[in-house]
């Protein structure tokens, strides 16, 4: 087991003008389950591959534990990697696939057998040890790939979208198994995904990346409730956070969020942040509000009578327990989430909704950064 440390790491590919990873700075504690998340092409895989040694570091230093590993070859880094498309050796049996890494490290035969059998039991693939990978289902293949990593008992697990080739149900199930597995093994894990659900559910901490730059590193709950900027706010959470453009105005010592359509009093807890800002910046502000904070249930709307606004229902989407209403607030489209809807909502219907301003986020429109920091 070990910690991992990235110090100002850059990656320049020859064919690309811009660096694919820029000034990557991160300390990963021992036993952490760190999730790298971000849209396609943001440099997650590149970062992971630099840690694995499959890709050279252009600039900066990487440490595993206290060891400087920039120039250490992949096999000597004490890591194990799980690939998106499993990468099982097709000509070897499941047992041999899992045993190979140990065999090449000259682990004693009985020890290999012990570890493979144990991993197979954890992953419930004991019955398939003699099969070839081509005779397994996708989920089984992925478990063999996990098993191959587990038996090595490495200092760090690296996983690059290991669940993305599985169907939705199997993905949820394997996700739970991975969490459980990390609970027992406590091995430092770096996990790459573009799926924000996986990031929120699995990570002890999340790193949100965009265009090779770290946007935010925090616990999942913090990233969700207190995003650094509009990108993180929009990327994490499903459906995405609502954004409404406007300005912050002051009148008689009170602050209001205001646009053509609405004028909402801002709760006092925000005042210190607002006072810190240059008044010029208050003219172009984006209000961010999660769908669950756009209240549409008539009974509850009245609890927030000062933040009411008229809306028009465009589309209604039933998602099991949740109902999503796509609302039109003048120019802006806003999504509202209702848990266990008790009333009927019809498209084209007029509706009074409440914006829960005490849960609002405010972003500077030009920089996209949160002002509540």
């Amino acid at each position: 087991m070990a910690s991992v440390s990235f110090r100002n790491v850059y990656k320049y590919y020859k064919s690309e003008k811009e660096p694919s990873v820029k000034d990557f700075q991160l300390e990963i504690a021992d036993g952490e389950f760190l999730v790298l998340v971000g849209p396609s092409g943001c440099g997650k895989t590149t970062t992971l591959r630099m840690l694995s040694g499959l890709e050279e570091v252009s600039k900066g230093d990487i440490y595993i534990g206290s060891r400087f590993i920039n120039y250490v070859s992949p096999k000597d880094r004490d890591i194990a990697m799980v690939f998106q498309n499993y990468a099982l050796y097709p000509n070897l049996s499941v047992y041999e696939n899992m045993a190979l890494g140990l065999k090449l490290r000259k682990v004693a035969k009985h020890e290999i057998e012990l570890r493979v059998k144990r991993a197979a039991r954890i992953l419930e693939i004991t019955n398939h040890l003699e099969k070839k990978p081509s005779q397994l289902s996708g989920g089984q293949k992925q478990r063999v790939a996990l098993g191959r990593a587990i038996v090595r008992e490495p200092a760090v697990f690296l996983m690059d979208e290991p669940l993305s080739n599985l169907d939705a149900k199997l993905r949820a199930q394997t996700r739970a198994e991975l969490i459980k597995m990390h609970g027992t093994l406590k091995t430092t894990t770096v996990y790459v995904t573009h799926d924000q659900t996986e990031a929120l559910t699995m990570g002890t901490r999340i790193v949100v990346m965009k265009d090779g730059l770290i946007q935010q590193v925090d616990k999942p709950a913090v990233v969700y409730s207190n995003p650094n900027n509009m990108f993180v706010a929009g990327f994490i959470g499903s459906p995405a956070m609502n954004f409404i453009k406007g300005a912050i105005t002051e009148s008689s010592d009170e602050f209001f969020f205001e646009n053509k359509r609405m004028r909402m009093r801002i709760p006092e807890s925000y005042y210190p942040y607002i006072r810190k800002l240059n008044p010029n910046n208050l003219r172009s502000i984006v209000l961010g509000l999660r769908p669950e904070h756009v209240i549409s249930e008539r009974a509850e709307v009245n609890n927030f009578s000062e933040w009411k606004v008229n809306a028009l229902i465009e589309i209604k989407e039933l998602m099991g327990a949740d109902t999503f209403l796509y609302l039109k607030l003048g120019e802006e489209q806003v999504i509202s989430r209702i848990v266990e809807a008790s009333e009927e909502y019809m498209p084209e219907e007029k509706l009074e909704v409440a914006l829960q301003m005490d849960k609002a986020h405010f972003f500077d429109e030009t920089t996209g950064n949160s002002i509540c920091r």
Partner: protein
Amino acid sequence: MGAIIYQFKKMSWSEIVLLISLMLMAAFLFLPILFIFNHAFKPFSELFNYPPTFIVRQPTFQNFNDLIMKTSAGAVPFTRYVFNSLIVVVCTVFAVIFTSLLAAYVLSKHKFYFKSLVMGVIMLSLMYAPETVGIPRYLIISWLDINNTYFGHILPFVASPVAVFLMKQFIDQIPNDLIEAAKIDGATELRIFVKLVLPLAFPAVATIAIITIQAVWGDTQASTLFMQDETMKTLPYYISTLASAGTGGNTIAGQGIAAAAGLLMFLPNLIIFLLFQKRMMETMVHSGVK
């Protein structure tokens, strides 16, 4: 029989039509093979029948007898040509597979300077027919002073752009992840090559073996151009002299011998094809390459 009828019943009309036309085509393509086999066993009188016949009426081994007897009387025995051919084919096949595998693996999975230049040269050399490079080959071989050696037979075939290209295309399909997984597992380059790439590339190896054997087994260029010593020439060259008047053969009397020799030339091709075809299918099915 019942099973066959049952199979037919399951098929739609278009499938039956397709099946029958494919069977007819196969039968048609089988005719030359039938002819080669029968022709070799025809007595002298039947060889020149008009209209020519496919099926032999009075089979005889006379032609094979003549083949062996005639040459034992000559300066070089028939078996010497066979021996030469076998040596050349076996060495060439191994050399071609060895070089093309190594070259293709590096071109496909490794990064190095001038890679695209090397690939370009290989593509360029794909365009030349063997005839056009006869003279340069001759110059190189005499410059290396390997006329009248087995090496002179083998060398021109070893530089096989077709083999490298085919092999590279095939190795390209082996996922990079697989090789990277092996690297992380601690495998050395040699081990990755021998234990991972080689088995996965086996169908390509088989294909290249077939192509090379057929080309080398039937080649007369090396014997004609580079070998002045009669004892170093190969079977196909010898056979080409049998039935042609210009090179001291006998156009009429040579026909029987040529027929027998033709069968001998054809047999290895047939055997190798049947052998490798089965292996190729097997490896394709079991390799599980995604």
